[in-house]
């Protein structure tokens, strides 16, 4: 008995030594960064223990079924439509030669640049009485033609058409890197192109598609503006309703928690998918440029036309509508202050993108350098912020940071808030919210770098930082750039969080557009919306140039 006891103590002592040995500065740094990121999540989480508010019964009786139903429909419909558009266009663009292919390749990303609530307004206007659709029918003397898209199906269409690029981007990356050589192998085995695509490429592309789809679904579940305007009650509109209309933050947090569980489920599915592919994926990326298939001219035009459909629906139609509105309102809205607004939005988005990519990199690599498995796994939790509605993130940030601010003031160290009401809180919140957006492309591009490459560098005498700077940084640059741009665009579009946390003197284009729209001046919102698109285009074009240069 005594012996067993001392054995026990010995093994305890051993684990302690090992913990002391394995814990390094990266472990602490990872934990510290995780803590910073997790603070708002924890703040909200702690509130869960307060129990749901009195209205919980009311909500679960009258509203929850329709929230569940609508969110479910939206998720299913959006998955179908975004996969349809995203995968087909990615495949056609990587596999075939056709006119304007190069231009379309990046035009397919452009729909991301328009906030989905603006797309919703534009489409509602497009199909409205006296809208473009109606005037088209007037030519045939059909008066008052109207297509009612303000329902759950219309909402699914609008959200899908503005979010499908997420699926397109990740599917295209997969097709570019691996699919072509696999397909060629399959063709050599005598399987037809179409059959190879269905039997081989589609199943193999699934993890990449699912990765993009998870981003789409998180955006769909978080959408507030479009759903509210279309009169579709979802979880997120429910969160706002119970938080603000019913004055019960507890209930809102309960709903957020439910939403969080949904999203967490999605993330788990995605992780599980990716784990499966890790065992089966072929070793290193095939770097030889793949040759595009050249079809007869008429087929080329057919393909061009097919690829154009999502671009037209996701970009040109809403922009057309916005331009018409802009034309009607420019005397009222257009003034030099818009330029400053654009510049401010650009600056904020730039800083946010910089810090978000930095944090994502730090989280990704610090957790890799740390030797404790538990911390490695925990680092994955850093991306949860994306699942939380912007408004909730904002509140989750304000509560703890105000404590710090107030403490500092009481200590007499500062005379005014240091964090709240300044860019610090705003950028902090953006980073928490968009970390996942940056993390995904970084993670997938770092997975492409075989572990033996950084290991070689370390064995050759370089430390972690030097290895990162000399080896990994140049190799994952493309992933970093796309991470940067995705966050940049998301920040430009972001609304609820910006509304709550922005400093006095700062204003963004999205806020301006929202102000107009929420005052039922949808037409006036067109010009700031167009400015968002133009500002978002700057880095997209820049990225495309850089990628082309690398090719």
């Amino acid at each position: 008995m005594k012996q067993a006891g001392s054995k026990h103590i010995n093994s305890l002592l051993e684990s302690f030594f090992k913990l002391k040995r394995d814990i390094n500065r990266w472990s602490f740094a990872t934990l510290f960064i995780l803590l910073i990121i997790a603070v708002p999540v924890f703040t909200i989480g702690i509130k869960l223990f307060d129990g749901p508010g009195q209205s919980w019964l009311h909500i679960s009786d009258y509203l929850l079924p329709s929230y569940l139903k609508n969110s479910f429909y939206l998720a299913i419909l959006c998955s179908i439509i975004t996969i349809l558009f995203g995968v087909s266009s990615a495949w056609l663009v990587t596999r075939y030669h056709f006119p304007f292919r190069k231009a379309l390749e990046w035009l397919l990303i452009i729909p991301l640049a328009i906030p989905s609530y603006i797309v919703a307004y534009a489409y509602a206007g497009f199909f409205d009485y006296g809208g473009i659709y109606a005037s088209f029918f007037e030519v045939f003397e059909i008066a008052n033609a109207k297509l009612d898209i303000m329902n759950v199906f219309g909402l699914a269409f609008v959200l899908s058409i503005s979010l499908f690029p997420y699926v397109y981007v990740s599917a295209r990356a997969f097709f570019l890197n691996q699919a072509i050589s696999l397909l060629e192998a399959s063709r050599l085995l005598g399987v037809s192109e179409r059959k190879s695509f269905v039997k081989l490429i589609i199943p193999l592309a699934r993890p990449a598609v699912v990765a993009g789809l998870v981003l789409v679904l998180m955006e769909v579940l978080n959408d507030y503006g479009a759903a509210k305007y279309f009169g579709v009650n979802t979880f997120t509109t429910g969160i706002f309703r119970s938080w603000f209309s019913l004055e019960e933050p507890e209930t809102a947090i309960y709903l957020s928690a439910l939403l969080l569980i949904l999203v967490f489920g999605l993330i788990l599915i995605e992780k599980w998918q990716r784990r499966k592919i890790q065992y089966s994926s072929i070793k290193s990326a095939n770097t030889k440029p793949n040759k595009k298939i050249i079809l007869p001219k008429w087929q080329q035009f057919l393909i061009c036309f097919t690829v154009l459909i999502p671009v037209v629906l996701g970009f040109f139609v809403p922009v057309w509508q916005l331009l018409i509105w802009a034309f009607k309102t420019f005397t009222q809205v257009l003034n030099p202050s818009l330029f400053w607004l654009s510049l401010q939005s650009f600056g904020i988005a730039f800083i946010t993108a910089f810090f978000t990519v930095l944090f994502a990199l730090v989280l990704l690599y610090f957790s890799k350098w740390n030797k404790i498995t538990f911390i490695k796994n925990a680092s994955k939790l850093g991306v949860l912020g994306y699942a939380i509605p912007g408004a909730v993130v904002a509140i989750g940030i304000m509560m703890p940071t105000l404590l710090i601010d107030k403490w500092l003031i009481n200590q007499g160290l500062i005379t005014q808030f240091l964090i709240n009401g300044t860019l610090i809180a705003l950028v902090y919140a953006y980073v928490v919210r968009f970390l996942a957006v940056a993390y995904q492309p970084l993670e997938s591009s770092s997975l492409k770098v075989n572990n033996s490459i950084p290991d070689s560098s370390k064995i050759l005498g370089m430390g972690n930082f030097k290895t990162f700077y000399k080896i990994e940084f140049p190799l994952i640059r493309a992933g970093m750039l796309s991470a940067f741009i995705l966050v940049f665009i998301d920040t430009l579009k972001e609304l609820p969080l910006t509304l709550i946390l922005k400093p006095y003197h700062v204003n963004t284009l999205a806020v301006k557009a929202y102000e107009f729209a929420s005052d039922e001046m949808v037409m006036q919102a067109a010009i700031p919306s167009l400015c968002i698109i133009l500002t978002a285009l700057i880095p997209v074009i820049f990225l495309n140039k850089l990628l082309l240069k690398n090719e």
Partner: protein
Amino acid sequence: MKNTLYLLLVIVAFFSCENDKKSTKDASTLKEINVYTHRHYESDQELFKAFEEESGIKVNVINASADELIQKMVLEGEQSPADVLITVDAGRLHRAKAKNLLQPITNSKIDSIVPSHLKDKENYWFGLTKRARVIVYAKDRVDPMELSSYENLVDEKWKNKIVVRSSSNIYNQSLMASIIANDGEDAAKMWAEALVNNMARSPKGNDRDQVKAVAGGEADLAIVNTYYIGKMLNSKDQAELDAAQSVEVFFPNQEDRGTHINVSGIGVAKYAPNQEAAIQFITYLLSEKSQKIFASSNYEYPVNPNVENAEVLKSWGSFKEDQLNLSKLGELNKKAVILFDEAGWK
């Protein structure tokens, strides 16, 4: 590496100048006022600018929805930099008062301008402009003689004829609150249920969309706020103009309590660092000059009785207002939302 360093330097510079620019709490060093407002009209911006020029007090504006602003003030507590809170309905002001975010202001000038039913009983907040929630009907299909009150809208004859926006909208919630206050809870619930039954479509879009739906023939009646009709009638968009011209405004409940009105109002924050400036700001907004701007550019009814209505509003004639104290709207707001849900009003 060098480039990264430069980038970092630029970012640090951006941050620091941001902090420098930030409002100081020492009113003595710089005269200014921090405005939390839910109103984001261009005309308001111009009014603020005019105030800055006239008084030399700098106006810092935070725009967000009233709910978010209130939440922000709650969290900021004593250190809140907010001086005044402006909302687009009385209910939210009442909520701010209930949450102990406002302070009472006794100022004879303000008292002399704002009628008693348009302000808080204990002077915690004051209305700036009025808006009436009215019925609009299709000129060619509806005989106004058939219309009478909000309560009358549940009549069988309007089955599938009414459009109205979602119950998450504060104007609807306030209307519901006024009905609860006037008719009682049970009657209000039955009213909402019957109204849902008469709806031509499930609630969606904003007030302008409701008018367009009536103009397009989807419905005969819509419940909307007056100033949207004013704006549509002055719109540059032909479709909106046509839509507004094909409908007519009807002021309900003229035979009994009067048409439901609401105010866009203002209150001084409890911990306002610039209290004096805040009062100066309020009196400026209530002055005839400012009220005229509210009336003419935004088609709202001014609270200052000395200021005339805009031409469009005049053309609809005068009407009897519901004299219900607007604090009631705030007290009954939550009840209204619950009843909406129970009645299935999306």
